[in-house]
């Protein structure tokens, strides 16, 4: 997957969690939690969806890598390179 496709994947998963989420003006370098109505349970949903959709088993101590949209893309790019 390309970096853009990974970004779209994350936004698509967030949209599944919260249909009302608005991405206009979303700063990719600021924490998603500060900009969207997301809590720790929602981040576990993101982890689960990555597992279900792409078989990614992310170690728990690496969950903080999903904090911002940019960090998601950076972290997932090598893992999804051949997906």
């Amino acid at each position, binding site marked *: 997957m390309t970096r853009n496709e990974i970004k779209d994947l994350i936004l698509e998963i967030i949209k599944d*969690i*919260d*249909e*009302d989420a608005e991405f206009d003006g979303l700063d990719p370098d600021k924490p998603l939690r500060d900009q969207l*109505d997301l809590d720790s*349970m929602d981040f576990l949903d993101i982890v*689960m969806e990555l*597992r*279900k959709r792409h078989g990614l*088993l992310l170690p728990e101590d690496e969950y903080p890598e999903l904090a911002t949209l940019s960090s998601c893309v950076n972290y997932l790019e090598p893992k999804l390179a051949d997906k």
Partner: protein
Amino acid sequence: MSNLPNHQRIVITGVGLTSPNASNLLEFRKKLLAGQSEITTVKPRYMDPAPAGICTFDETRYRKKKENKRGTRAGCISVYCANEAINDANIDFSEYDRAKTGVYIGLTEHGSVETENEVYNISNFDYNTDYWTHHHNPRTVLNNPAGEVTMNLGITGPHYSVGAACAAGNAAIIQGVQMLRLGEVDLALCGGISECVGSFGIFASFKAQGALAEHEDPKKASRPFDRDRNGIVISEGGCIYVLERLDKALERGATIYAEIAGYAMNSDAKDFVLPYGPRQAECVELALERAGMQPQDVTIINTHATGTKQGDVEECKALRQVFSDCPDTYINNTKSHIGHAMGAAGVLELAGNLPSFTDNMVHPTINLDNLDPACALPNIVANLPKQLDNVDVILNNSFGMLGINSVVIVSKYRK
């Protein structure tokens, strides 16, 4: 009239509900008087379609889609009913403290829907439990529906579920009354909820028991007391009442639907599923005694009868025993309209009858084409509503598996 002091008299001042034919009391009453069933069919997972009652309330009136997705169907129904009840009672929490408000929700069962969904989910991943959702526990803890209400309304008093099979709605009312009388809370939101149309296991279990209704027209499938009845129509639904002490209700000028005049619960101590008329009769007699009433004082008996062969007959035996000499007592059944809403049944059915105190009508039992001789009680109001001169007292039966019986008696409020 009650002999209790006003601070021990408990009254209903708000009703919030969703049933398979209505999303508020006014609409519900209108449909019941018109005999308008909206029972449809659902296709439970792995099974053929079956008659069922589905609610179509505005799910996002009181919380966001995201919160509905996070929570359970039972929680969604509870939040709707609780908000409707609070609004109906004109409670804005300026006169009541959220910390002294209790939420008591009656449930027949809870967690079947979520568990079945998750087992189905992991079946798509070779039953690897790494794919089991982290939402499972918060969704299936037994206090879930009541807890979702407290989070939505910011209520910080106690909340819990009352598990009492299909007597649970009545049991939750009783819990609310007791907590108010004990002074544990000043305001009680209590009622019952059911999400069970989402569980194939509940349909399959009734079917295996020979107790799942079948009819080519789903609207005619729920037919208590009828010779051709063949089982239960499973429905979802919910009803939550605002209960408060009479002195406070009068002080704030609340509209009073009814006063809780008496109640009782007991146990058959006999069988897992089969009901037992003699113990039901004892429960009715105990409730009357506590209300300080004679059987002749009851204007309307709202029956529990679910449309099963034996259950209906047992309840009729109990009523025949207690109300043998009551020519002015009328009998009806709400499940014939809305199916069996399990944990919500008792409270929904009582709600459907509360307007009788103002319109003096008895809503009919519908689908009663050929009265079963074993159910031939006098004064069953069949197929058309009955106009009376006055309705003073309503007795509400609600019984459940494992032999749990409950009776709540409400009376028209009089000073």
